[in-house]
């Protein structure tokens, strides 16, 4: 039997796993704070005011902002792309290399966008 072609899945799986860890470890706290308590006005602090937030993201030479974006936006995006891609297979909805390109492509594009915006913020002065 000839050997099957090596799959490129390890790349996506590694991103998926890293994103999965972030989703499980960083997201519950983040969603709770930013998506629920803050809008409800239950976090009555100044940290989330425009100026303070900006300086928080810029702190540590901007690494704080980059880390936040990486862990809470980019990696989870790849996690989601992976699951959606395989979900299309599970639901027999046009799973193909085109949808693969679309899923991971979108994740990559949105990640770039997030990083671009973050850098913009960090470098803004």
């Amino acid at each position: 039997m000839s050997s099957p072609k090596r799959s490129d899945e390890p790349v996506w799986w590694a991103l998926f796993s890293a994103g999965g860890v972030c989703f499980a470890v960083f997201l519950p706290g983040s969603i709770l704070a930013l998506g629920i308590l803050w809008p409800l006005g239950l976090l009555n602090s100044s940290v989330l005011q425009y100026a303070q937030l900006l300086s928080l993201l810029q702190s540590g030479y901007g690494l704080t902002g980059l880390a936040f974006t990486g862990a809470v936006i980019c990696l989870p995006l790849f996690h989601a792309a992976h699951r959606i891609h395989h979900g299309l297979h599970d639901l027999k909805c046009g799973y193909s290399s085109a949808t693969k390109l679309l899923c991971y492509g979108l994740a990559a594009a949105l990640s770039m966008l997030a990083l671009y915006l973050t850098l913009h913020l960090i470098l803004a002065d």
Partner: protein
Amino acid sequence: MTDYQLLIQRYDPEHDNEPRLQRFTVPGDHTTSVLDALLYVQQKRDVTLGLRWSCRMAICGSCGVMVNGIPKLGCKTFLRDYHSDITIEPLAHFAVEKDLIVDMTQFLAHLSAIKPYLINDYSGTALHKQTPTQLAKYQQFSNCINCGLCYSACPQFGLNPEFLGPAAITLAQRYNLDSRDNGKAARMPQLNGKNGAWGCTFVGFCSDVCPKQLDPAAAVNQAKVESAKDFIISMFKP
């Protein structure tokens, strides 16, 4: 003795175009297994009922069927645990040859594909040494009875019959983890393919139904880690 209602899926390739359910009433007590019930039907009601069995003690792996939609060993599933109609169908995802008998060719091909034997260049006559700790690394994965239940539980195999599937990948891990084996390099190409370890999305039901508690899902996903490592190594090779 209580009367149990069995709905058995029948399929006669020489007359039917598709399977149908047939109802049988079977007497049973607290020791009657699904296999006993099926044999009762075969002996007393309908000799044409087709099924596989042999050891009736959950070790030969012949008697897998779907009981109310869940893959089970007929000889290790008891009527006493069911209270209304019991639907018995052939193992899911395999082609049905007749009644409860499925075509296992693909399953065997997948097992063979991963080279399930020790590969090394040892030519001595002395025993290999292997400590209990080394043995424990793979022992659990060597307990597979090849019943195929995990394939019926795995939707990925159902969607893609080329997927090597839980038992075969577990078997590959069993040999890869054996301290006497050097054959990992020969086995990895199968695991590295899209139908190898990467065909799995960790549904995990395979481990739930495994009658020998091998945790094939763990084996398959450990194989992913191995394949990922292999991927990285391959990038540094010409």
